C-alpha cells in the first residue's frame, strides 16, 4: 500500500515546523500531525503556543500552560479503542507541551547570566520586564529554545512545532536575527560604561539628546540593561547559532498551512522564498479548510428542505458554498507554481495536500483522531 505524503514526511523528518497565518487551522493540524505520528508508532511530541482552551482540554491540559511534556498516550489509547479505524501499527507515544513564554524567558536569562545576582538585577530592570513580555520575537525565540532542548533529549522521533501567532508568517523566521541584532557587540559596549573615556564626542552628544527626550530615570535603566546584555551575550550568541544550525539541518522540514484562497499567494510566495533564503528546507503546502472534496448532490439538498422557506434558505447556503468551491479550484492551479523547484528529502515530490474543512469545533482527542486519520488517507493528487 502506498503511504500518504504526510506519512512519508513523518518518516523523513524528525522535526516538522508548521507555519501559516492566523485562522487557517494550524494548531489543530499540528496536534493532528503529532497524533498521526504516534499512530504510526513514533514517539511524538507537539509544541503549541497558546492554543484555544478547548483544544488544550482535548490534549489533556486542565491548566492553560504546561511547560513540562504531558503524556497523553493513555488518552490516545482510549480514543483509539472507540474509533472505527484501527492504527496501522503499534502505538508510539504522544506528548504535548505548551510553553509559558514569560516564565521560560526568565529561565533562559537565569541560565545565561554568569551569576545569580546579575540575573536578579536584570529581571528587576523595567526595560527587561517589557522586553520579556512584549518584544516581538521573544515568543518565537522561546519556542525555538524549547524545540532545541527537546531535540537534545533524544526522547522523540517526531517533534511538531506549531509556530506562535505572529504579525505575519515571516516574523517567526526572522525572530532569531531580530534578537541577534540586540547583541551586536560593538554597539552594546557603548552602553556598558556610560562614563567610558573612549566615548566619542558624537556618542556623548547623542546620549545627551536622548536623555533630554526620555528623562533621566530611563537612561539609568538603559545602561543597566546594556550591561546585562553585554554579560549574557556570549552564551546567548552560541545558543542562537545552535538554533540556526538545527533549523538548517536535514532533521527539520517547514510546511506551510494555508486556506484555499488565491489572494494568499503573494504572502505564500514571499514565505517560500524566505524559507529558502534562510537555508531551511521547505517541504510543501497543506491547503486546509477545503470544501471541494465534499459530495454535492442535488437530490440530497432537495429532500432536506421540508417547506418552501427551508428550501430558500438551503438554496442560499448552497449558492454560497458553491461559490467558495469554485474559487478553491482557481487557487489550486495558482498555488502550484509556488512549489516548483522544491524537492523533498527522499527525492519524493513536494507535499501538496488538501484537507477538509471541519463541520464543527474540535472538542476531544477522539475528534483530533478523525483528523489524524484523514491526514493518513489524503493524497490523491501529487504536486507539480
Amino acid at each position: 500500500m502506498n503511504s500518504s505524503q504526510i506519512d512519508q514526511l513523518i518518516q523523513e523528518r524528525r522535526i516538522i515546523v508548521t507555519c501559516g497565518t492566523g485562522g487557517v487551522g494550524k494548531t489543530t493540524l499540528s496536534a493532528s500531525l503529532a497524533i498521526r505520528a504516534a499512530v504510526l508508532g513514533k514517539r511524538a511530541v507537539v509544541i503549541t503556543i497558546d492554543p484555544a482552551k478547548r483544544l488544550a482540554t482535548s490534549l489533556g491540559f486542565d491548566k492553560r500552560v504546561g511547560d513540562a511534556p504531558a503524556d497523553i498516550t493513555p488518552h490516545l489509547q482510549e480514543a483509539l479503542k472507540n474509533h472505527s479505524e484501527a492504527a496501522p501499527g503499534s502505538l508510539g507515544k504522544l506528548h504535548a507541551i505548551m510553553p509559558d513564554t514569560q516564565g521560560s524567558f526568565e529561565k533562559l536569562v537565569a541560565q545565561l547570566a554568569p551569576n545569580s545576582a546579575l540575573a536578579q538585577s536584570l529581571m528587576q530592570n523595567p526595560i527587561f520586564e517589557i522586553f520579556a513580555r512584549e518584544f516581538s520575537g521573544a515568543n518565537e525565540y522561546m519556542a525555538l529554545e524549547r524545540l532545541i532542548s527537546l531535540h537534545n533529549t533524544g526522547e522523540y522521533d517526531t517533534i511538531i512545532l506549531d509556530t506562535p501567532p505572529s504579525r505575519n508568517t515571516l516574523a517567526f523566521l526572522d525572530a532569531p536575527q531580530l534578537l541577534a541584532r540586540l547583541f551586536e557587540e560593538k554597539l552594546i559596549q557603548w552602553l556598558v560604561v556610560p562614563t567610558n573615556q573612549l566615548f566619542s564626542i558624537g556618542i556623548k552628544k547623542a546620549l545627551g539628546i536622548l536623555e533630554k527626550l526620555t528623562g533621566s530615570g530611563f537612561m539609568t535603566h538603559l545602561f543597566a540593561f546594556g550591561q546585562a546584555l553585554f554579560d549574557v551575550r556570549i552564551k546567548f550568541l552560541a545558543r542562537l547559532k545552535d538554533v540556526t544550525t538545527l533549523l538548517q539541518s536535514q532533521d527539520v522540514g517547514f510546511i506551510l498551512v494555508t486556506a484555499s484562497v488565491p489572494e494568499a499567494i503573494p504572502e505564500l510566495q514571499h514565505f517560500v522564498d524566505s524559507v529558502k533564503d534562510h537555508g531551511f528546507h521547505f517541504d510543501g503546502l497543506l491547503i486546509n479548510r477545503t470544501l471541494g472534496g465534499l459530495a454535492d448532490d442535488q437530490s440530497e439538498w432537495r429532500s432536506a428542505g421540508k417547506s418552501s422557506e427551508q428550501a430558500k434558505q438551503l438554496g442560499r447556503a448552497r449558492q454560497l458554498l458553491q461559490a467558495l468551491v469554485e474559487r478553491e479550484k482557481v487557487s489550486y492551479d495558482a498555488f502550484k507554481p509556488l512549489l516548483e523547484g522544491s524537492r523533498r528529502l527522499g527525492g519524493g515530490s513536494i507535499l501538496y495536500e488538501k484537507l477538509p474543512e471541519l463541520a464543527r469545533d474540535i472538542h476531544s482527542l477522539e475528534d483530533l483522531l478523525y483528523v489524524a486519520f484523514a491526514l493518513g488517507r489524503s493524497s490523491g493528487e501529487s504536486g507539480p
Partner: protein
Amino acid sequence: MSFQSVFEKNLIFINGKGGVGKTLLARAVSHHLASQGFKTLNAVFEDPLREPGELIQPDPSLPKLWSFNCEAHSAFEEYIQQKIPLPHVSRLFLKNKLIRYLSKAAPGIHELVLLGKIWFERTHYDRIVVDMPSTGYGLTMFQSVVNFGKLFQSGPIHKDAELMLETLRDPKQTGHLLVTLPEEMPIREAIDLQGYLQKLFPENHSQFVVNKKFPHLETLTRQEDSLWKNPVPKSLLDYALKKSHTEAEHLQLLRERGKNFQEIPYIPPTLHNAPENLVRDLASYLKEGTS
C-alpha cells in the same frame, strides 16, 4: 451602539484575531467613509508586500480615499526631526550608530513609533481607519504606549505617550471595533481581547462585529448524536447544516454575556478579483446599514 456611532470617530481601530477579515473590513469601512465625503486614511502596518511608507490613492473613483503602509524607520526619523528642530543636530542624532541601534533593537520603540505616526496623522484626515495586527501583537502596540508613559518619567516622549493614551481612551475621538467570525475560537479570543482593551481604555468601550455570518438554516437539531460524532463533514449539505447550527451556538457565547454585536453576512466571493469586489460589496452593505 451601531456601526454609525463608530464611524463618527476620528480614529477607528479594527482589532481581532488573525484570519477574521480585518484587512478587507478596514478597507471597506474606509471606502464607505470616503464615499460619504470624509477625507479618509486606511492605514496598515508594515505590509511586507508593499513599499515601506507608501501613501497612495487606491481608487480613482474615490478622491478622498488614501491608503498608507505605515513603517517604523521613516516614522522614527520624522518624529525626531519634530522634537529636535535644529536640522544639523537631529541629522547627527539620527546618523549616530548607537541611536540607530537603539531605535531598531530596543523593545517596544518600534510599536510606539508606528502607533505614534497614526496618532500624529489624525489631524490631517477626517477619518483614519487602522487595520490592526492580530490580537497579541495588536495589544502589544497599545500596551507600548502605556509602558513608555511609565518608563520615561519625564521629557517630551513621556508627554506624547500620555497624550496618545488620552486620545485612545476618549470615546469622542476614538472607536474600537472587535472583529470576529461566528466560530468558537475567534469569539472567545474576541471576548478576552475586549477585556484587555477595557483595562487599557476604561471609558472607551469596544464593539463586536461578527463577520461572515453563514445563512441561517432551521433544519437540524443536536438530537441525532451519531450524526455529530465525526467532525469531518460527509457532504456539502452536511457541512451547511452543521455550520448553521454551530454558529447559532457560538453566537450564544456573546449573547449570554450580554455583549451586543453587529452581523455582516457571508458575501459569496467572485471567481476573480475577489478582494476588490468584496470590499465594494461590503462598503455598500455598510452604507445600507447606516443610512
